[in-house]
């Protein structure tokens, strides 16, 4: 059984950890797709504009 040295945390720090966790969760949830779009946008030769990036129609 894996048992790490336990830390005694106060209620405030527990709450803070929870908040940080929720924030990380939110950032990942809403930042994942924009992050991919940014990576792709930065690497593509003709930097497409925002509308072109999201529209399903050919943008030429």
């Amino acid at each position, binding site marked *: *059984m*894996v*048992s*790490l*040295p*336990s*830390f005694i945390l106060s209620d405030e720090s527990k709450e803070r*950890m929870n908040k940080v*966790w929720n924030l990380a*969760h939110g950032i*990942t*949830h809403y930042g*994942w*797709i924009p*992050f*991919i*779009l940014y*990576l*792709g946008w930065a*690497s*593509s*030769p*003709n930097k*497409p504009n925002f509308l*072109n*990036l*999201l529209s*399903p*129609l*050919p*943008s*030429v």
Partner: protein
Amino acid sequence: MSQPVSLKSVNVIPDPNTSTEVSNGFWSSNPISSFFIDTYKQIHSHRLSLELINPGTVENLNKEVSRDVFLSQYFFTGFKADLNKAFALNPAFQTSHTFSIGSQNLPSYAFSALFADDNLFIQGNVDNDKSLSGRLNYGWNKKNISKINLQLSNDQPSMCQLEQDYQGSDFSLNFKSLNPSFANSRNIFTGVAVGSLLQSVTPQLALGLELLYSRAQPSAPADAGVSYLARYVSSKKDWVFSGQLQANGALVASFWRKVLPSVEAGIETNLQAGMTPITDPVLGAPVGIQPTVEGSTTIGAKYEYRQSVYRGSISSNGKVACFLERKVLPTLSILFCGEIDQFKNESKLGCGLQFETAGNEELLMMQQGLDKDGNPLQAPPQPTEI
């Protein structure tokens, strides 16, 4: 349609085995350490003389059958339309919009984006319920790949899987952990941890072990299990046999053969052993347990041509299914899939359209089979199918 992207790396690390050649005065003169070094070298040279190759990953143990030939990965119901838009090929960047009607499991709208270069592969998919599924693979070098799999949604528990792949010269190691957490009152591990090793024994045969440890709640007892794996690839690489005895009592055997470059056939048998409680017919109280075995066998074939891919399968539990994919225009494919359950008298049907568009002129011309100046290309371009 997620297929692993081969991650090529530019930087090659020096083989740690060659570093022993640089003999350190102390280590080589010391009788104890030199004994170990010599033994290691002997074993290593013997291992090299066996000419073993990397057996592939555990995840791909029966990939040829379950992911290439069988159509369950591709099956959908209802009507769907995919609008794929490619912005660049190298590094690959494309977005996709999927609309669907009349399906229980497909969301009515989903947007996905994909980016892949030599050592990074990142993909995300978000649907109209704002639930996100994401994958990230990063190749540190030729042998080490880290993977993250995410599933985040507002109303369901989120899922996160961390994975590390190591591909040695004649073995593959893999560690993965699903929802690992130490954040509980007793600081003990909760989640699922899996470690696996697949080792080539002869140039054709590879044997493996998979260890699984899981604990859902810190208060509940943990679960552990061992799975056994085997894979045999014929010397001409035209047929593959693989078998798995899983920790939960399932036995999976599969066989694959490449009949022609365009025709593949495969069969898979699944046996699931379990226990059902016997209840007293009068009182309804459990009086004992009885072993049960559920089994099914599926045979299928895949025909792949330049303009179309056909897959079909028949299963011993009465299911007959087919999946047809045909490119009618360079930028438009039509999909059809159907399944009939002969024993339950049920059927499923799916139709789909796939449009390929481009985010810049060069790609648009390429999709039409033309080069930059409007002249026909010599060979039709192979779209990066991911």
